């Protein structure tokens, strides 16, 4: 066959630059959408709600519970909020991570490909031609960006609410030691990043589900259904043997960033687990999407 005169001479790196342009377009599509803003708004309300409730409960100014009480995640943080507003960040993340936060990720990831298919825009992207692998990568990248944005929304809302309603200053780690407020802020940022990374595996799973159907709603429901199922399995003691393989197994490891010194083992284990999920379901999504008939 003749090679014809179809040639594309672009400067080196032009394709990478073009993919960044597509990513920017994808981010615009995700974040300038009303649905996304509503999801983020709901997430932002959670720390405010917790803060107000704690403030009312401890209205007389007496601290609720001693510092560095029991180990573990949420409850220990919760008890410290009235001592230090920064703990509202940790509490809010611990409260939203098991369900609310991944729920919003399930909506965004589930809709990523299936939503374009049901709107018919997918066929126009493909004839542009966007490239199926490239589209999938950009969709995953923007879903991860949403994970980060969602987590930061909770964190920032918690930080601001905490600063407005409660005292600031030195804080006590889970290990019982004291750290500066500025050090606490760093830890808060690290925790937010750890939480965002915790969602990477489920985001890949949601994207895979999204390649299975031409209905955005079905894909969102499917992803959220999987989340609920996994979180229920997680509570069944008889399934102990399975738990380490569930994407949420290490989710509360972020609390280890509030130890002194930081216990990294579980944090790394979480990153490995998320990376494993991202690879597994990223590949599955690719395998499914690359050769699929697009007849929507």
């Amino acid at each position, binding site marked *: 066959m003749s090679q014809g005169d179809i040639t594309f001479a672009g400067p080196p790196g032009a394709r990478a630059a073009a993919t960044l342009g597509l990513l920017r*377009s994808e981010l615009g599509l995700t974040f300038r959408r009303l649905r996304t803003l509503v999801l983020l708004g709901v997430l932002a309300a959670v720390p405010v709600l917790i803060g107000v409730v704690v403030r009312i409960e401890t209205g007389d100014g007496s601290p609720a519970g001693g510092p560095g009480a029991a180990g573990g995640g949420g409850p220990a943080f919760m008890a410290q909020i009235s001592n230090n507003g920064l703990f509202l960040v940790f509490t809010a993340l611990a409260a939203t991570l098991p369900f609310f936060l991944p729920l919003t990720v399930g909506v965004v990831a589930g809709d990523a490909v299936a939503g374009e298919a049901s709107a018919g825009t997918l066929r126009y992207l493909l004839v542009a031609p966007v490239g199926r692998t490239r589209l999938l990568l950009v969709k995953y990248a923007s879903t991860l960006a949403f994970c980060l944005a969602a987590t930061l929304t909770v964190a920032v809302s918690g930080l601001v609410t905490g600063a407005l309603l409660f005292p600031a200053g030195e804080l006590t780690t889970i290990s019982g030691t004291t750290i500066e407020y500025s050090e606490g802020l760093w830890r808060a940022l690290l925790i937010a990043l750890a939480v965002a990374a915790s969602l990477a595996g489920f985001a890949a799973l949601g994207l895979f589900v999204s390649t299975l159907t031409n209905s955005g709603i079905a894909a969102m429901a499917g992803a959220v259904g999987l989340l609920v199922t996994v979180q229920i399995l997680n509570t069944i003691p008889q399934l102990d043997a399975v738990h380490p393989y569930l994407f949420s197994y290490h989710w509360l490891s972020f609390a280890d960033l509030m130890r002194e010194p930081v216990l990294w083992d579980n944090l790394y284990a979480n990153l490995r687990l998320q990376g494993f999920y991202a690879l597994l379901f990223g590949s599955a999504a690719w395998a499914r999407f690359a050769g699929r008939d697009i007849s929507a």
Partner: protein
Amino acid sequence: MDDAAVETRGLTKRFRGGQLAVDHLDLAVPAGAVFGFLGPNGSGKTTTIRMLMGLIEPTSGTAHVLGRRMPRAARTVLPHVGALIEGPAPYGFRTGRDNLLRYDAADPTADPRTRAARVDAALERVGLGAAAGKKAKAYSLGMKQRLGLAAALLRPRRLLVLDEPTNGLDPQGMREIRALIRELAQDGSTVFLSSHLLDEIEQVCTHAAVMARGRLVVQGPVAELAARAQGRIAVTTPDPGDAARVLKEYGVTDLTVAEDRVTGEPPPGDRDPAELTAALVHAGVRVRAFGLERGTLEDAFVALTGEGFDVTG
């Protein structure tokens, strides 16, 4: 193959349900043609176009677009192709301009530096300049079709594939879109226009292929196709009765008489119509007008398929 903008060999698509949507299709679209892809609804036009654009995999057979095998060469071929497939599909919550910016950003070979200018030019070209800042969900169907066309025109294209671009439009909208298609063809693009409207193909196209139930019925230059439909002899006369009798004697069949007009199928063989006029005059029939009516594509379709071109759904 170099001269064919689109060429398929034995192209077949059987859907998972067992539905044979396209059945051993051999298409040849000459470069530079305005190629009408004609067929009633459900005859396999969109399925064929999806295979040409690499959206679905053929069950068997091959498709070459601009000389390259699809879907394998999608990445190199499709930047040269503008397509409107089964109706427009804009992002409703984004403006018309945002829609085009996104579709252009999706093409890795499109130059981002000229993007804004090309988007505005495409919008102007289809007459959407004034509505560019409106959300696409507020567009009428006609405006959405235009937006789809604008997306196909973001870059100079060697091939435009337009799947029923006038579907759902009012007559005025249809005229405007057809005028635009003619313009585009004059600019040198090959146009592959699918339609279930015979007159649309006749008005716009140089070449045509006719599909029925997934099969190719015929293809070729429109003029040739129309010529295949035999023209009818038409005589205008104050003596229709006598005229009909004389014509019948000379082998004209399927005679119909309507007031002062007598029409019929010419006799088989290569008889010169002049013999008929001589015979009429000789028999004392007063003839006001005598002519051979040109066949239409519709006659050709009816003759070829033995069925009417009735469109359902």
